[in-house]
């Protein structure tokens, strides 16, 4: 459109170009994939990192936040990965299968490949597929975020990942934890493709553990949910870390299918969980939940676009944010209803609880409706702890700090319980207590 005037790059942007030069040879992919990577770097060169003058990043200025960019993490030491897996188990005694990615690369030897195969789940190394004929398709951007800067950053640097195929009709009996381990410092970029076959059902746990020193983590989860399939994705972005945590969901939902997700954030200095959700088949349902705790002068951003592109689909978006210190919380949620997507039902709610005077919440729920026969609602609230509730608890002998914990937990649990994956509820509530005790 316009002839672009070259921008002055920040230190982090210059670092990213250097990173690309030094990694280029080692990054996997076919000629087409390499072309996509080049194009993504060109986009970064033209536009820079996403910043506040880009509408979608108005409240989460990644360009201002990133002062520098580390090189990509190199291959992980296996014994170190094993030690971290033992030390930092976010779900304690929960029975589950594991798929392990460390420093951006899939580690089949630490993953339950055989057991998963018996359940109808096939795990493929993303890098093999990227080099194949259809490699470039794996890096397709979200429909409603074609030029998203974080996804472009991922495309440029994606080091590895997995493709998880769930066979038609397979109901996986235990949750599958897709755990990404940082076994040394350095940036990580991964891409996860999940294809739930028709009628399949799966509960994914997406966790990030390990050394959280320098280097951003950028992970894109791309779910294809076939007709009548059920996918639940519980994503945990927890633990103190000074570098950015950038997570993206792309969900494509077939007919009579169900997608549920919970994005749970607590701890990072800068975290963005963005979701691009598309209904492509009728009579389907998406239930999207967010539970965010943010303190100090950190930033936590939950952003989503739900596209009701076809008729007769329901979506529910329910987000809870607790803020303390001088933290900033962001919720941007948009429901789009296309002109022919009649009988769409969308219900979006975002609620914030501010524990300090200096915390700040940007709540931005939006509806964009072109159909005339729909039920859509949105709402936003921001408030403080109710003094009357606090007094009642204290009058029963519960000390102030414990009473506050109960009330914060109650506030957040509403979303956790409605999400309804009972086997992780206890673990998530324990993480809330961790945050309250340590932030």
């Amino acid at each position, binding site marked *: 459109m316009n002839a672009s005037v070259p921008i002055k790059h920040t230190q982090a942007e210059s670092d990213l170009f250097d990173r690309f030069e030094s990694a280029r040879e080692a990054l996997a992919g076919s000629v087409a994939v390499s072309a996509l990577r080049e194009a993504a770097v060109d986009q970064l060169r033209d536009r820079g990192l996403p910043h506040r003058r880009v509408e979608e990043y108005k409240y989460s200025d990644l360009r201002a936040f990133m002062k520098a960019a580390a090189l990509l993490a190199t291959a992980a030491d296996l014994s170190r990965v094993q030690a971290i897996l033992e030390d930092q188990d976010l779900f304690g005694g929960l029975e589950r299968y594991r798929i392990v990615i460390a420093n951006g690369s899939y580690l089949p030897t630490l993953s339950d490949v055989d057991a998963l195969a018996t359940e109808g789940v096939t795990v493929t190394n993303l890098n093999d597929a990227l080099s194949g004929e259809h490699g470039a398709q794996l890096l397709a951007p979200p429909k409603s975020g074609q030029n998203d800067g974080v996804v472009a950053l991922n495309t440029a640097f994606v080091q590895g990942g997995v493709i998880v195929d769930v066979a038609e009709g397979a109901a996986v009996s235990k949750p599958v934890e897709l755990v990404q381990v940082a076994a040394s410092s350095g940036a990580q970029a991964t891409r996860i493709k999940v294809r739930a076959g028709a009628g399949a059902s799966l509960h994914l746990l997406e966790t990030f553990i390990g050394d959280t020193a320098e280097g951003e983590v950028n992970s894109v989860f791309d779910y294809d949910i076939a007709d009548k399939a059920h996918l639940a994705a519980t994503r945990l972005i927890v633990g103190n870390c000074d570098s950015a945590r950038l997570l993206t969901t792309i969900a494509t939902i077939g007919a009579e299918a169900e997608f549920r997700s919970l994005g749970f954030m607590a701890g990072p200095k800068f975290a963005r969980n963005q979701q691009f959700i598309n209904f492509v088949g009728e009579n389907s349902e998406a239930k999207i939940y967010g539970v965010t705790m943010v303190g100090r002068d950190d930033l936590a951003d939950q952003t989503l676009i739900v596209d009701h592109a076809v008729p007769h689909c329901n979506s529910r978006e329910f987000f809870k944010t607790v803020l303390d210190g001088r933290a900033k919380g962001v919720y941007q949620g948009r429901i789009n209803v296309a002109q022919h997507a009649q009988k769409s039902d969308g219900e979006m709610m975002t609620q914030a609880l501010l524990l300090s005077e200096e915390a700040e919440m940007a709540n931005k729920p939006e509806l964009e409706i072109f159909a005339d026969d729909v039920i859509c609602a949105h709402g936003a609230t921001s408030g403080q702890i109710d003094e009357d*509730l606090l007094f009642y*608890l*204290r009058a*029963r*002998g519960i000390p102030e700090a414990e009473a506050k914990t109960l*009330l914060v937990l109650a506030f957040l*649990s*509403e979303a956790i319980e409605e999400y309804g994956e009972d086997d992780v509820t206890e673990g998530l509530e324990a993480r809330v207590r961790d945050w309250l005790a340590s932030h």
Partner: protein
Amino acid sequence: MLEIKNLHARIAEDETEILRGVNLTVNPGEVHAIMGPNGSGKSTLSYVLAGKDDYEITEGEVLFNGENMLDMDPDERAAAGMFLAFQYPIEIPGVATMEFLKTAMNAQRKARGEDALSIPDFMKRVKAAANHLNVSMDMLKRPLNVGFSGGEKKRAEILQMSLLEPKLCVLDETDSGLDIDALRIVSQGVNTLRSPERAMVVITHYQRLLDHIVPDVVHVLSKGRIVKTGDKDLALELEKNGYADYVDAAA
């Protein structure tokens, strides 16, 4: 057990004086009723005793078993044995009643240096008390007071009171919003807790409650002061003649 001496209190926000020199001594084993017209300061007195910080104490003192109670936080008062049954029990969405009961009982035990209750012991106590007050286990699974009827809320208050085993029970208009059957159940619950070691202060508008919970002493509170003290017959007299005499006397 409880000694209130020349207590003056005002609303912190707008400095409206509500209590204007209350004097009251309650001994172990005694049940005192405080009656009075609307706006006389009855609920304020109960909140001040429980430690609500909407009020400022401008003069006087409150001793609880010889200790200065006004220096204590609400939770410290509770652990020391003070219990306020709220006129309007607060609904707390997201906090399961059982979880709340366990947290409260164990917090008080911890403050007193006692061990936490085992789960079976806790369950046994709750079941016994709930059975006595006609509180269903289903009700206890719900979030605290959420969706409870007026009667259920009051029964839940008395349930808490019996589980927490306080030394001093202050009941703020526990009869309000109760039908006759609920009133009987609640009163029986309260009467079961009467003991030589425990004192009670029953705040009410109406004599009706005092047919069920028979007081040893009746006080009339008017315009922030106790203007008359008598035995249970005073309540009957008030029921007949109203508060007019005392409102004038205090003026």
